[in-house]
């Protein structure tokens, strides 16, 4: 799978800068991966391979570290990462209905997490620490409380409008 993200080129050069900035020290692998993930929004396989080459460690080690921490993703993610809380408090406030509504709205099929246009990624999280506002949804850094399915759809519509993307173009 070749990865085609806008700005990919800029990022590849950035990869080198990041590695250099840590003096290619294998001890800093986690920090390096963190910065790379910020750049790409996920950890592409070819870039991990490249890191292994440039730092002189085995790809299996890099893969091990990349899969160990929950915050790293080896799957490409959308520009907007939506997290629906499924902690106990949110669950009893029907957060799963919210999730289903979002899945439908974003036309995500079974097991699919990211829209084809790479705009949205839908995930669940266990307790986002805002139980007072249940059910809770977070989009990138922004927290939305007491979200009904209708409200969620509206929020998505707004983002789509902002991105110059109408509902039917996104599939």
């Amino acid at each position: 799978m070749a990865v085609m993200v806008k700005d990919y080129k800029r990022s590849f050069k950035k990869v080198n800068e990041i590695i250099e900035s840590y003096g290619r020290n294998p001890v800093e692998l986690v920090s390096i991966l963190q910065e790379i993930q910020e750049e790409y929004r996920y950890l592409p396989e070819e870039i991990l391979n490249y890191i292994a080459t440039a730092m002189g460690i085995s790809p299996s080690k890099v893969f091990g570290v990349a899969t160990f921490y929950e915050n790293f993703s080896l799957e490409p993610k959308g520009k907007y990462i939506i997290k629906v809380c499924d902690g106990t408090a949110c669950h009893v406030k029907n957060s799963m209905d919210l999730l289903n509504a979002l899945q439908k709205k974003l036309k995500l099929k079974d097991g699919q997490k990211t829209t084809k246009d790479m705009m949205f990624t839908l995930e669940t999280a266990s307790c986002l620490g805002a139980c007072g506002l249940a059910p809770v949804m977070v989009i990138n850094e922004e927290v939305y409380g007491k979200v009904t399915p209708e409200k969620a759809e509206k929020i998505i519509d707004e983002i789509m409008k902002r991105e110059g993307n109408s509902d039917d173009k996104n599939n």
Partner: protein
Amino acid sequence: MKTLKINGKVVSFKNEKNLLEVIRKAGIKLPTFCYHSELSIYGACRMCLVEEKKKGLIAACSTPPKEGMEIKTHTLKLQKQRRMTLELLLAEHDRECTTCEKNADCKLRELAANLGIENIRFKRKDKKLPIDDSSPSIVRDPNKCILCGDCVRMCEEVQGIGVIGFAYRGSNTVVTPAFNKKLSEVDCVDCGQCAAVCPTGALTIKSQIDRVWEAINNDDKIVIAQIAPAVKVAFGEAFGLKPGHSTEHLIVSALKTMGINKVFDTCFAADLTVMEESKEFVERLSKGEKLPQFTSCCPAWVKFVELNYPSFIDNLSSCRSPQQMFGSFAKNYYPKELGVSRDDVFVVSIMPCTAKKAEACREEFISNGDPDVDAVITTQELIKMVKEAGIVFDDLKEEPFDMPFGFATGSGLIFGATGGVAESVIRMLDEEVKEFKDVRGLDGLKEAKVAKNGKDIKIAVVHGLKNARKLLEKIKAGKAEYDFIEVMACPGGCVGGAGQPQPNNAESRIERALGLYNSDNKIQLIRASDNPMVQKLYEKWLKTPDSGLSHKYLHTCYRPRRRIEGSDIKFSAEKSKMNIKICIGTSCYLNGSYDLFKEVDKKIKQDNLEDRVNLEATFCLENCNGSPSVEVNGKIIDKANKEKIFMLIDELI
């Protein structure tokens, strides 16, 4: 002398590294999964827990022995604990024991029986992970993995590669090659050492027994077997003999009983290898080129060089390994002697080795779809076949090898131990030498000097690929210089091959090597050139060593290989006129390919060519000798620099 108490008995100890060794020396079999005396200590399996009077529960593998300790090894509490640990492991484990390749050697099964596990109270995991049988040598069944990490440490600490590692976390933890790729898609050299230490059926040797039975039962085939030296001194271990006990003539007899038509000796082919390899070496010495010369008998080592040190490929001797030299004369020469055709002959090798299975599949050794060696079985597989055939070992009568390829000198025999190839070549260089002890034994690096024509020839011998890597790095850095280097991938050389019977530890390897040296002592002819049958083969077929014919049939070539199958890093426009791929594989990276990438990228931007030039970074174009390599519109450019590439851009655009 220091002492401690084990189960009330006073036991003395000296320099044992840990309690476990003291306990085992005291004759108590304390179970372990993740402890191997030659690997680092992991302390994860919890099977070796013991009770110390003051400290309570401690892991024996990672606790040094101390004066006055009072250890109990089998209290009720400990027994319960161990059973529980084992039950938990078994709950996660795919328990298809009857059909498991490892069943006879499985430590898990053995312990379950010893500890009296009768039922398993925990629920079985229902998720089945795919089995990887893509490698010609090894099968990986992650459903049987107990996460002891033995294989991971073996591949990294002894082989210096790190093909497999732990990934994911918690209950999802697995041991896998990078990115869940198959073993055939990554930098595995097929040495099999991971499978040799795996306590369960998660890593096993890929069996070719069926292929051999099929050939035996096919009346149209003449089945020819060759037996490697390391097999001779290990086969008997399965039948109660000590490691090192030579059983070659019993093996001949067993193979004949099974229905194999001709049984020959790989040592004969080893003698032939020495003839070719020493001639080649003398040639290189006199020309002063391609030195140090590396041995090429070990296919795992050869692949390791192709994958990791492409700039040293020319240093490898061009000689085929003894197995493949045998395959070549068995298929290209022998049929004519017999008055039959190549297709009528089926060649099976009996090897200590899993890498030889992969070697037999190399395209260089296959003509028109017909491999020179049709099947490779390990010592372990041979033992299985003997049992399957219902052969009673004690009733076997010794039988001689067949001729003309059944006679070998001592030189061919010692090939099975680390240092053996070097010593054989030395015996050819110096007529005075009988025994050359400097290159024998289990030291990681052995060095020696031989005087020839008033010059000192410097020789190094290493085994275990980590040791080889260290040596190559030293040579690269200009910190060491040699003329001849022998490398065997397995610890101890082929006597420690992954296909040998268990236990395959340092003690067994030493004994097996001694067995070979003892046999060597009993043979009067110790120089390859003294082998009359080899001389005859030259007379009748090859003419002289290093001749045109011998090059055609006994030599080969190598090529750089990609370490990992993966995708390339793509950048810009689709409708571009020009496609440039810059290699960022290790070899090219080290030769400055990233800087080249930066320069080309800059130029493309400066000249506003972003829509017309497509720039990619790729992993290894398998042209490492020409590093840095760049591919422009499908054509590979050696030793690329920015001038060359800029010129091409200007020309084409």
